[in-house]
């Protein structure tokens, strides 16, 4: 029982990190129909910028804030300079964002050096709780709490506010939203920036979780995020949470019981979903 609980916490924590990355990706894809392969680059820049501040100030809270600001600024630059010229052309989007991803990755090596960096959780998040026979690692619980809190906040914004309704309406029919007098380009930019900030936040939270950061981890992690977007349903925010938790749990349990299949299991889930429900688990209706 304690093993199941431990694996579940691990899976949920991994799922939440993937969710933070995938949430931005799914909103960007759903609203803007943009395949952003540079999303992983925003993830690593969030991780490195945050960790650098963490090294300098020893404040993890400041590290989180700097990572979010880095994500917002990079999101603005990416949307205006990289994405805007290729709206509506998926082939160009894939090529240019993949190229930009590599640029962001190499710039990390230029700015911070090519070596891996070790990262420890802040003192107040180190250690664990014991509940019965189950040992719960504090930092993992912190990630789960942050993930759920952010999901709830964004969910309520999307469901209850007019700006949230506009974003959801834009995912369904961009043209119609414009004819209601709403500047969809501005909404695009704002959503892109928020998506980038979520990716950067995911990066900085991931750093103490994995204990090490390196430039190539953005691409590795963003593949998981793409899998989650496909499973959850392109453009579905709630779908990305469910799919991220599913992927996180599947990976955690497989890594323990059938380690050889731990990476393949996500591909397997995606394949099954694509065969039986190609629109994803949560379909957005136009």
């Amino acid at each position, binding site marked *: 029982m304690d093993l199941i609980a431990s694996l579940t916490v691990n899976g949920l924590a991994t799922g939440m990190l993937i969710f933070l990355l995938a949430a931005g990706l799914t909103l960007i894809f759903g609203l803007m129909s943009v395949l952003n392969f540079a999303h992983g680059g925003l993830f690593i820049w969030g991780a490195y910028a945050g960790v650098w501040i963490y090294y300098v100030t020893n404040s993890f809270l400041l590290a989180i804030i700097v990572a979010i600001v880095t994500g917002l600024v990079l999101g603005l630059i990416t949307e205006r300079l990289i994405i805007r010229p290729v709206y509506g052309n998926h082939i160009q989007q894939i090529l240019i964002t993949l190229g930009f991803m590599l640029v962001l990755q190499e710039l990390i090596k230029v700015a911070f050096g090519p070596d891996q960096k070790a990262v420890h959780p802040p003192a107040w998040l180190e250690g664990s709780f014991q509940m019965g026979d189950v040992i719960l690692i504090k930092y993992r619980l912190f990630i789960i709490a942050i993930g759920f809190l952010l999901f709830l906040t964004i969910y309520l914004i999307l469901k209850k506010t007019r700006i949230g*309704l506009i974003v959801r309406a834009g995912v*369904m029919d961009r043209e119609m939203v414009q*004819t*209601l*007098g*709403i500047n969809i380009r501005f909404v695009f930019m704002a959503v892109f920036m928020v998506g980038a900030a979520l990716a950067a936040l995911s990066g900085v939270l991931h750093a103490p979780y994995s204990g090490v950061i390196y430039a190539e981890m953005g691409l590795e992690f963003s593949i998981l995020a793409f899998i989650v977007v496909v499973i959850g349903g392109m453009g579905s925010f709630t779908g990305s949470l469910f799919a991220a938790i599913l992927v996180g749990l599947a990976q955690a349990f497989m890594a323990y019981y059938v380690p050889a299949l731990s990476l393949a299991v996500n591909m397997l889930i995606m394949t099954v979903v694509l065969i039986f429900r190609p629109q994803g688990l949560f379909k957005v*209706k136009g």
Partner: protein
Amino acid sequence: MSSLLKLSQVEAYIQQFHILHDINFEVPKGEVTVLLGRNGAGKTTTLRTIMGLNPVSKGSVVFKNEDISNLKPHLIANKGIGYVPEDQGIFGDLTVGENLRVAMKREDQETTERLDWILDLFPDLKKFWKKPGGQLSGGQKQMLAIARAYVNENDLLLIDEPSKGLAPIVVEKVMETILQMKEKTTILLVEQNFLMASKIGDRFYIIDDGQTVHNGLMGELKQDKALMKKYLGVS
């Protein structure tokens, strides 16, 4: 005759296809102007071009004495033009109430009064307030699309084929509503249903192969059987 909207020698393309060749018409304030023509004549493209959804390649679109050709759609909408597209453009995952809330530029007394007025005309929208737009019937979707365009204080409404695909009884209801809206706003209507168009419209323009080929008062058209047969296939 004071004209609210005027199109002069408008040409437009969809991708490489030259759809509008020479569109010229005026929409007088306070009237219902109907664009008639066979399928594929360019009526829907004309409305989309006015809304800025298709670029104007030549000519001008003047609204309230201001050239709005090639302005962005949201700027055109904010100048006071409401749009009901042919496919209704309902946001399927949003409820009826949310569809209307997205459209409402203000939530003041005047907007609330307009909303109440249109909901009185379409009680189904009140009844299904919390139902997702995607689950409404075709007629209810049309009612929602019209209500959404009407809820803001627009000077002009562009309505594209409101009777399309609807049961006759629903068409009657939509027609009655447009007749009542006519008292409050100016309307440019695209309509294939000649009976409906002739009951609602004050004047007409016939579009054929991307050009305006005839215009006049609706009463005159009803008398001109040859014209109706030639361009509209109505005998």
